[in-house]
């Protein structure tokens, strides 16, 4: 039967396809999107697969509509997603803000290209790292996950849905064209073996329910359209009933809560991978595809006797501030190779706060880091230059 045709097993699979499969495995049943290289394969796969799982695929007229549409589907209680690249995210940002304010769970995939503007459609970059954090106007907590392989694109898409449901917000995946377009082995476990989190539906009766009442976890209970709750929700500053309230008091209660519901849970959300951190003199911090392209330089530095550790960020936002602050007391410095002219290195610098050196190895995108450049940076930091 078509309905049971969820994949599991070992596949030789493209990153974008793995992402689509991860979404389906997580329970995504609504995709709204607009084509753009290098993310289109996600939409194409969803167009093929969703109808067979009783889901909905719609190719909207633009990215603005796509983002608004997945928020609507989310309010109908259906897990929803969109996928795009830099210019598309720029268009989505207004409604990403609406999703943050309305607390609508959904997932936004950004398969990054070299930018600004239309930039490098067919090659890669990591140019939208800051945009994911600060793209929409205003303050809000934000979660961004960064895969470095097709396998991880699958895994982190499942995680993204889990975070979206648990903390009620649009969650980003910041992949890049290399991860999206490369084909590698992907293992898809049977659906029963995956951890799947669903949003907390209210157990209150319609008359007693307040759409934005919350407890210690700061995350309000959800009620979906059509269940008789007849709630109101708005992008305006609102009270616990969801009614607009233009007072400072209301803003003071609402906006910090949107930030803190993520900030307070950084231990749950922050995913990192580390090697040889203990006793390291230099730590290379990288994320996404860069974390793979810089490995040979790290190996070479080790062969030269330099004590190099390696920290990979799978979660970029919220930024693992505490971890880096603590490490900064013990090392000579950090080397941060990234495919932009220094976005995440700024964060590292902020956390290292003059305790240790931070050396950026920039790359504008479209290619990968040169072996020698990364090695040279490691050596310089190790020798206190």
């Amino acid at each position, binding site marked *: *039967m*078509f309905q049971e*045709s969820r994949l599991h097993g070992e596949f030789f699979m493209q990153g974008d396809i793995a992402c689509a499969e991860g979404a389906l495995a997580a329970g995504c*049943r*609504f995709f*709204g999107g607009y084509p753009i*290289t290098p993310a289109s394969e996600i939409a194409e796969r969803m167009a*093929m*697969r969703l*109808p*067979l799982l009783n889901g*909905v695929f*719609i190719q*909207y*007229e*633009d990215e*603005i*509509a*796509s983002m*608004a*549409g*997945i*928020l*609507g*589907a*989310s*309010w*109908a*209680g*259906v897990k*929803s997603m969109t996928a795009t690249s830099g210019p598309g995210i720029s268009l989505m940002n*207004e*409604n990403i*803000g*609406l999703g943050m304010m*309305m607390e609508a769970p959904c997932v936004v995939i950004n398969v990054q290209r070299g930018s600004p503007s*239309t930039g490098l*459609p*067919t*090659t890669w970059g990591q140019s939208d790292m800051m945009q994911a954090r600060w793209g929409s106007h205003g303050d809000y907590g934000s979660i961004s996950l960064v895969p470095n392989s097709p396998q991880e694109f699958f895994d982190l898409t499942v995680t993204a849905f889990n975070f979206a449901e648990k903390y009620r917000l649009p969650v980003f995946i910041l992949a890049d064209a290399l991860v999206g*377009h490369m084909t590698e082995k992907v293992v898809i476990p049977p659906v029963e073996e995956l951890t799947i989190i669903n949003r907390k539906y209210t157990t209150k009766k319609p008359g007693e329910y307040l759409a934005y009442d919350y407890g210690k976890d700061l995350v309000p209970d959800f009620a*979906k*359209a*059509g*269940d*008789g*709750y*007849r*709630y*109101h*929700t*708005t*992008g*305006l500053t609102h009270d616990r*009933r969801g*009614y*607009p309230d233009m007072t400072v008091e209301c803003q003071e209660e609402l906006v910090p809560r949107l930030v803190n519901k993520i900030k307070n849970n950084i231990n749950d959300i922050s995913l990192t991978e580390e090697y040889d951190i203990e006793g390291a003199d230099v730590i290379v911090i990288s994320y996404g595809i860069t974390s793979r392209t810089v490995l040979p330089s790290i190996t070479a530095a080790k062969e030269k006797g330099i004590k190099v550790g390696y920290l990979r960020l799978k979660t970029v936002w919220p930024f693992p501030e505490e971890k880096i602050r603590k490490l900064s007391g013990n090392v000579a410095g950090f080397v941060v190779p990234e495919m932009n002219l220094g976005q995440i290195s700024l964060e590292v610098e902020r956390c290292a706060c003059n305790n240790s050196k931070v050396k950026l190895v920039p790359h504008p995108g479209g290619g990968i880091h040169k072996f020698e450049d990364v090695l040279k940076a490691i050596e310089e930091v190790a020798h206190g230059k």
Partner: protein
Amino acid sequence: MANNTAKPIIEEKPHPMEDLLRMDRMPHIWCSGCGLGSAVTTFVEGLKKAGVSYDKTAIVSGIGCTGRVAGYLRLDSYHTTHGRAIPFATGLKLANRELTVVVFSGDGDLFAIGGNHLIHAARRNVDINVICVNNFIYGMTGGQNAPTTPLGAYSSTAPYGNYEMPFNLVGLAAAAGASYVARWTTMHARRLTDSIAKAANKKGFCFIEIVSPCATVFARKNKGGSGLDLLKEFQTRAIIDHEADPTQIPLSMDNEIVCGEFVNKDKPTFWENVQTGIKAKLEKFSNWEELQSNSTKIPHKKSVTYTSSRDTYNSRSNT
């Protein structure tokens, strides 16, 4: 001394629309003399008449004075971003096809910033109803030009009189493919109620324009007098002609306001078309791998493979 057992002079009765209005949000923010009050009253009457389940009815608004409608109705209600109510509503409806989904918003919201969404939702014939209050101006932001502002009319951004051709909303909705298209003024309470009720029970994309007085900014900029004066003017200018071609009845400062039900047809909705298309394919194949392998077997004229040569790949002009 007050006599507790005496009957109060004014008996407290529940508001007749209490089941559909959020009484805890009254008073509303609209100006006195604004047409929005009548538009909402008529909408409530229309929903009652349609007999739809209120629990299964959702209302989505964009931004502006009209955009505030969602907040005053006791339904599942969504006050979204400027111009984006239609795609939001499309997602809501497609994800839960049991719902009756109504978009209630202003002419600026739906036809300026949201114009692209409106024509595409009409083209797809998504099963939602769009009610557009046309007051010929941007009310909430202080009387700037709208895509409906008549030629020559004054607005805050047309201090010498508007020199842009206005949109004819019913013509645009009909041409884009709507299943149902009607225009009324706030004065046509009974006919408008009927249209709203009809649309609530009709499948496909239904569009209703409500010509409405903006007593504060449009009237002030154009010496239109009070809300009541504007209604009187509508009364003298409005005619009803169901046979009119919706593309031929634009509105200006002083012509006839042709009202009526211009389009009422049955055609497959977006979702029905999706279902038909998929069913036809699924009957041929027993599982999706088979379906997929079949689709990849279709020979391509020019097959492009992702090779290490940047030139080959870049020859696809993807932007």
